[in-house]
């Protein structure tokens, strides 16, 4: 695991941006959870509470022209990337002002203007798309990197193996970000996979790999930066395992009771947000008044965005009937 060193050696504004990014993702997800109880969210939703350091750390290290693919647990990636909170809430609430006009919903937040090009609802389904975006980046020759987020469960599906292999043989600028939260839906990793340290998978594909504490936003940022530098320099793909934990169940209807209480307690004690806040304070990067001010700003942003989204119009049949093909 990487040692993230002293914060005082780092750019203060960047550190505060990371703090705000994680805070925005956490409060967004908490508001989605409340909205579900209020009846504003339909079907189901998959929250990334507890895993914010991964999306904020990786996305914070990207260029605006890099490509991102992710999963149904992808709200955090989108919010960290700068998706309009109002349009994200509206999509999750099924409103016409949503990023996809209410056609996709919680599992399918995308925004081509931000190169948020694919949210896979199928485990592992986004990996092939990321290979294509990486080939595109390589052919274009502008130093872009394609980044794909997926969970530990996806490492058991065929697409994962095909894509690792292809990325290596084509030497693609592709960063595989495995968010290992120890559970594939309701089943613990030790019942589905021969080892918990998924970075071991990398050796079989001759891919450069690293494992980091996915709850340490600085460690994630540094590992991502190294992988991105390799990709931009034409040195090929990197597999990055981020060990983390989701605080809630798999989806809204799952209380997560299959998890041992001690395990949950130990990970809650390592919540990435208070941990980073504590570091910022103890290493005297800022004072608590400044952090409180930032938190209040985020809380206001979330509240207003959700309010506006909840007041938006529903889509009508004409909004979806012509959307499958350009030329129907």
């Amino acid at each position, binding site marked *: 695991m990487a040692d993230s060193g002293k914060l005082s050696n780092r750019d203060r504004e960047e550190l505060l941006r990371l703090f705000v990014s994680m805070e925005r993702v956490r409060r967004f997800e908490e508001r989605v959870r409340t909205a579900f109880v209020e009846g504003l969210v339909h079907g189901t939703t998959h929250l990334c509470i507890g895993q914010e350091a991964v999306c904020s750390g990786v996305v914070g290290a990207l260029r605006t022209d890099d*490509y991102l*693919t992710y999963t149904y647990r992808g709200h955090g990636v989108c919010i960290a990337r700068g998706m309009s909170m109002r349009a994200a809430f509206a999509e999750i609430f099924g409103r016409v002002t*949503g*990023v*996809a*006009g*209410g*056609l*996709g919903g919680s599992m*399918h937040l*995308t*925004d*081509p203007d931000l190169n948020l*090009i*694919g*949210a*896979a*609802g*199928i485990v592992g*389904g986004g*990996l*092939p*798309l*990321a*290979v*294509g*975006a*990486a*080939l*595109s*980046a390589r*052919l*274009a020759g502008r130093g872009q990197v*394609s980044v794909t987020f997926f969970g530990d469960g996806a490492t058991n599906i*065929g*697409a994962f193996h*095909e*894509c690792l*292999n*292809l990325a290596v*043989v084509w030497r693609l600028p592709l960063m595989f970000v495995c968010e290992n939260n120890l559970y594939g839906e309701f089943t613990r990793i030790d019942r589905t996979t021969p080892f918990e340290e998924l970075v071991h998978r990398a050796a079989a594909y001759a891919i450069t790999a690293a494992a980091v504490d996915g709850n340490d936003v600085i460690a994630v940022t540094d590992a991502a930066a190294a992988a991105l530098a390799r990709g931009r320099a034409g040195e090929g793909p990197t597999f990055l395992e981020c060990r983390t934990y989701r605080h809630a169940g798999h989806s809204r209807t799952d209380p997560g009771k299959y998890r041992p209480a001690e395990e949950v307690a130990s990970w809650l004690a390592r919540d990435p947000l208070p941990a980073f806040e504590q570091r910022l304070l103890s290493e005297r990067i800022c004072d608590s008044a400044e952090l409180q001010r930032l938190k209040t700003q985020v809380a206001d942003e979330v509240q207003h965005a959700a309010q506006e989204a909840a007041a938006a119009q529903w889509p009508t049949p004409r909004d*979806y009937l*012509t*959307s*499958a*093909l*350009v*030329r*129907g």
Partner: protein
Amino acid sequence: MANAARLSDERPGQRLNGDVMQTELVSYREAISRAVGDEMRADPRVLILGEDIGESEGPLKTTLGLFKEFGPARVRDTPIAEEAFVGAALGLALTGYRPVVEIMFADFLGVCFDQIVNSIAKHRFMSGGRMHAPLVIRAIGGGALRFGPQHSQTGESWFLNVPGLRIVAPSTPAEAYGMIRAAIRDPDPVIVFEHKSLLGTKGEVIFGEGGIRDLDMPAVIRPGDTITIVASLAMVPHALEAAQQLAAASISAEVVDVRVLRPFKPDPIVESVRKTSRLLTVEEEAVHGGWGSNVIAAVIEQAFDHLDAPPMRLGLPDSPLPYSPPIEDDAIPSPDRIAARARELVAYAL
């Protein structure tokens, strides 16, 4: 064609001007290769991926000359990993390229079914229409070559139930050339079903812009008055041969090449049946769940009063295609069998 003109107008500067129109007698396989090559020459965003398509020019020789002209960056050999490279085509399409992927045997579409059905077909929709997926999947299918149950399926009806795809099936070299070029220019994902037993067949092809065909609807390819026979792929030449036999018996069969299976516009077939009052569909696949059922449903919905006999479907028995020559031949509708069924329908008395 109007369609091609409209699409090229949307992309000023991407097309070569002064494309010379010329007609040549070529094989279906050469027509495929030249369609891809002409689009690659005209548009630097076009590239092709698939198994053994580079220096080897394809196991079925359907990428003739492409590697030599365009090199390994644009004519890419892939590992045997359809899920990865078909899904990669979507990633390429979303980020500015116009990929073509070759599926060596249409049977292998089963390997990448998820990417086609859940990602490629739905991506534009799930983005609320904000992203487009202009990509082409060329799948070479079909029987009669003794390849056995896992290498002989046409696959043409497997995706009929999937909105978000355009599905076409060329039956001649001219159609292969014209439809593949149109498919590469199309803004949506297109699956082109080709047929192994047609690869060596020859026909006149207009090369250049003038040879580009529409991807809109079925086409009447032999006019007639007494019965409408609708066929696809290798069943098209069988239907034409049957029509000749029928003509000798003074039965005038109108033959329709179904050609575009999705989105399905049955208008030319409905119009034909209004004239002939009889309908026979011929497909090289099990008829249950095949496109013939769609054709008949459309005709019943739109021309019920014009029918003088119950519409009939002819296809494979409800069985995988066997290997051994006499029984594979037994399974695939022959011109004789098509003609016999047509005579039954003509003799039918209400």
